[in-house]
């Protein structure tokens, strides 16, 4: 392996090597900028999420891709929201069942439920938590692309695959000569 890498670089000038490295970082930089730019545009910290659970079936299945945006208007009943419960990493995609807008504080009291779940989400929230609020919501589901997130799920289940794929792609970028 090391010998092979050595052979590949043989005969490269320093200039070529630097240019290739720059090319590599340009690609990573552009992807990152696109992601962050899109995130700003739709006002959501993670504008694209992959469905991980079966709680919204048959609308959304495991591996489907959802496009989010944070609306300027208040959250309303029937909106499919992606929200985070404090102290937990993985966000939840569920529909809003109840909403109460408090006049004094302007705060929204939101209760959610998965379409495929028998009861509301108070069993999922933290102990004694009755409502979620707008600040817990990452975004509202606006668009849908089936299956496209399956790759992420497979790579999450088999992390070795992720590193293998990233490694091969990285090598390809470095060694591709125009």
């Amino acid at each position, binding site marked *: 392996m090391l010998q092979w890498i050595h052979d590949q670089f043989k005969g490269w000038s320093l200039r070529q090597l630097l240019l290739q490295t720059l090319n590599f970082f340009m690609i990573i930089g552009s992807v990152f900028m696109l992601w962050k730019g899109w995130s700003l545009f739709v006002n959501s910290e993670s504008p694209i999420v992959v469905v991980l659970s079966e709680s919204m079936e048959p609308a959304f299945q495991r591996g489907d891709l959802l496009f989010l945006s944070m609306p300027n208007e208040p959250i309303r009943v029937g909106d499919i929201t992606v929200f985070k419960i404090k102290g937990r990493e993985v966000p939840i995609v569920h529909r809003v069942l*109840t909403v109460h807008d408090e006049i004094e504080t302007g705060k929204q009291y939101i209760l959610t439920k998965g379409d495929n779940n028998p009861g509301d989400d108070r069993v999922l929230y933290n102990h004694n938590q009755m409502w979620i609020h707008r600040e817990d919501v990452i975004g509202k589901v606006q668009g849908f692309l089936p299956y496209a997130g399956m790759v992420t799920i497979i790579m999450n289940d088999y992390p070795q695959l992720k590193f293998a794929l990233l490694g091969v792609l990285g090598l390809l970028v470095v060694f591709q000569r125009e």
Partner: protein
Amino acid sequence: MYSISQRANAVLAFLVTVTLGFLVAVALTSPILLHGKGLRPAPGQNVLKIVDAESHKARLAFYDRTQNQSGDSELAIIRFDISADLRDLWNWNTKQLFVYVVAEYETDSHSTNQVVIWDSIIRNKDDALIRLRNVKGEYFLVDINPTLSTVSAKFTLHWNIIPYVGALFWNSGGQTPILALPAPR
């Protein structure tokens, strides 16, 4: 010049482009096909008609007790008729309709309150013709405050169109007149 990997790469790139192009085209037809389409009410019938509302006082396991120390709260059970034809919303990019009945009201402390009392998942065109009599609300009508008897609510039928690919759409119709909820028995 043309190695196998280059050819494979070209074919794969072409396939991905064609597939994505097709999916974008399908997604773009949705707003066109849905333009001007909506709820078709049956002639001479209300889309939504409240048949009965009854209130009770109860202790709800998951009720917000920070608002009410005793734990007792008023809840209402609503019975209603639905007569709605949503078959027009069905086209080749309609995967599912999510239909729900919403109670909406104002209180002194909260400017907008929306509570879903019934919902249904519709997966084919024939089922999008909804004719239901004396349906009992699936969910209790419970406010964030313990009292409900001072509340006057109106009820509306809402629907959400979930596509095979593309944007989701929301709309509503068939609002009932304002109904004063009865005092608990």
